[in-house]
C-alpha cells in the first residue's frame, strides 16, 4: 500500500514537473510571439506615420502649385475666378428647341424659300 503510494507520488511529482516546464516554455514562446507582434506593430505604426509624413509632403499646396505651374500646357488648369462660382438657381434655363411638329413645318418653309430662290 505504502509502496503504491510512493510510486504514485513519484510519478505525480515527475509529471507535475513535466507539465510545469511545458507550460513555462509555452508561456515563454507565447510571450516571445507577443513581443514579436508588438515589435511588428510598432514597425507598422512607424511606417504609417512615415507614410503620412510623406503624403503630407506630397500634397503640400506649394508643391502642387509648382507642379501645376510646370505642366500648365498639358493640364490647362487656371486659378478659380470668383465669377465662375454661382448658385444652380441663378443659371439660365437650357434653351429648348422647337417641338417636333413645329420643326417639320419650319424646315418645310425653309425648303420652300430656298427652292424659290433657285
Amino acid at each position, binding site marked *: 500500500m505504502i509502496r503504491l503510494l510512493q510510486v504514485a507520488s513519484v510519478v505525480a511529482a515527475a509529471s507535475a514537473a513535466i507539465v510545469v516546464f511545458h507550460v513555462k516554455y509555452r508561456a515563454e514562446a507565447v510571450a516571445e510571439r507577443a513581443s514579436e507582434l508588438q515589435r511588428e506593430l510598432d514597425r507598422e505604426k512607424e511606417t504609417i*506615420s*512615415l507614410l503620412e*509624413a510623406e503624403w503630407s509632403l506630397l500634397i*503640400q*499646396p*506649394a508643391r502642387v502649385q509648382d507642379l501645376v505651374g510646370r505642366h500648365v500646357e498639358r493640364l490647362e488648369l487656371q*486659378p*478659380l475666378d*470668383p465669377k465662375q*462660382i454661382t448658385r444652380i438657381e441663378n443659371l439660365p434655363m437650357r434653351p429648348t428647341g422647337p417641338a417636333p411638329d413645329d420643326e417639320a413645318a419650319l424646315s418645310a418653309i425653309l425648303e420652300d424659300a430656298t427652292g424659290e430662290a433657285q
Partner: protein
Amino acid sequence: MNTVTPAPTWHHAHAASVAARRGEPDRRGRWRVLLAMAGFCLLFGALAVRLVSLGLTAEAAEDGGRNFVLNASQARPDIVDRNNETLATDIKTAALFAEPRYIIDPDEATELIASVLPDIGRDALRRVLSTDAKFAYIRREITPRQQQAIHRFGIPGIGFRIENRRFYPGGPAASHVLGAVNIDNKGIAGIEKYIDEAFLNDLHAAGFVDDHTMEPVRLSLDLRVQHVVRDELVQAMERYQAIAGIGVVVDVNTGEVLGMSSVPDYDSNSREQALDPNRMNRATVGVYEMGSTFKGFTVAMALDAGVANINDSFDASHALSVGRFTINDFHGKRRWLTVPEIFIYSSNIGAARMALALGNEGQHDYFERLGLLNTLKTELPETGAPIVPAMPWPKVTTITMAFGHGVSVSPLQTAAAGAALVNGGFYMTPTFLPRTIDEAAAVAQSVLRPETSETMRNLFRLNVLKGSGKRAGVEGYSVGGKTGTAEKVENGRYTSSKRRNAFLAAFPMDAPKYLVLVLLDEPKPETPGRGATAGSNTAPTVANIIRRIAPMLGIEPKVVDPAEEPALALASAQ
C-alpha cells in the same frame, strides 16, 4: 557523509536520546527534531521563492538587448491644421552612441566607424572611445543606410538609440507659427515651445508619454490659407523689391488666426536658418508705426465717443501747426472735409483734428481697449512689446498717433484691433488654437458700439470703391479696407524715400468674416516713375490673397454687393 556507518535514523536518535536522559523522556529530542525540520523547511522555502522570482524576471531582462537599441522618450504630439492636415510630425532616426568602457579595441572601432562616417574626426573619436566613460554620442541623426552598415560590423560597446526627429512637411510654409525644436526634440520657439510649456513637459515628467498615443495638437491655421498668404507675400516682395513682407488672416468673429506669414522666413527643418535675425517673425515680434491704417481707429473712436458725427466736416484747408511741427496732407484737398472724405483721402490734418476733438485721455482709453498699448499675449512665446509714449502724452503725440506715427505696434495686434472695427465692436485676443463662436463670445470685450462698427464697415467699403484702396477690390467679395503708408525713420528722421506700407482689409463687408492685413517693408515702384504708396502695392497684394482664399473659405461671391449702396450713401450724404 561518506563514512560507511549508516546515517542515524530518527528512531536511533530517539533511542539514544531516551537512553541518555532517562529522567526527561522524549521532550528534548522531539524539540531538536522539530528545530531541524523547521530549518530545512526555511532553507527549501527560500530556494523555492528565489526560483519563482528568477522565473518571473528572466524574460524582462532578456528583452531588447542591453546595448543595441534604446528607445528615446522625447516624443512630441503631431501638429495639425484646422482641417487636420499635418503641419509637424515625428519621424524616427537613429543616433549612434558608444559605451567606451565596453569597447575592447578603440582603434579598430574608430577605423570601422570612420569608414562609414568619413567626415568624423578620427582623433577625437579615438580619444572618446579610449576613455572609461559610460556613454557618449558619436553621431546623431544618421541615415538608415549608415545605421545598417555600422550594425553589420557588430562592434561591442557601440549601439543605436532610436530618436524622434521633428519633421515639418510644409518646410517654410508655417515656420513662424510652428517655431522650432532643438536636437533633443524640445520646443524652443513658436507653438512647439507653447506645447512644451502647456502640457508636454509635465507629461514627460510624469512618464505618461508613449510614442503613438498622443492626440495631435490642432491649430486654427488653415494650411491652404497659410500657403496663399506666404505665396502672395513672396511674389509681392519680388515684384516690388521689398525687403520684408508680413501677412495675417484672422477670423473677425472668433479671433482665430488662419494664416500668418512673415517673409523672409526659414525652413523649419533647418535649424541654422531660424537663427538668422533677418528671418525673424515680424508679424508678432516686430513693432512698427502703422501709418494711415490707424486713421481707421481714429475715426472709429471719434465717432464712438460722439465727438464727431459722420456728417461733420473738419478744416483741412491748411496745414496744422503745433509747436515746431507742421502736419500736412499727402494728397491735399485744401478745403473742409467730411468724415468719409477724411477717411478715403486719408487726410492727416482731418484725422488729427478728430483726435484733438477727442483729447489725449479719450484717445488713450480707446487705444487701450483696442489692445494697442499692451503686449499682446497669444500662444506664441515670441511677442514684441508695443512702443507707446507715456501718458499724459502731449498734443503733438495725440496728433501723430491719429495717423499712426509715434506709436509702434505689432501687425498681429493691429489685425486684432482692426477686427473689432468691423465685427460689431468686439475685441478678442487672437489665438492660434481653434476657438468656437461661443468660446469667442466668452472672451470678447465690447469696445465700440455696434453702430460705430457698422459705419466703419461702410467707410472701409467706400474706401475700396472710391478711395485709396481701389486696387484691393475683388469682384463678388465686397472688400473694404484702409491703406497705410508710413515713412520709415532713418537716423532719427522720417524719410520720404523709404516707406512701410500696409493695407488692412476685411470681407465680405456686409457681414465681415475675415480680416487680411498685409505689410510691405520698403516697396519700390512696380515700374519706374509710378508711385509706391500702399494703394499701389499692398492693396493689390490683399486683393490677390482674397481672390484665392475666399472660395476656399466657402464665401459665396455675390453678383450684387449689398454693402455697396450704404457705403456710397455715405459719400453722397454731404
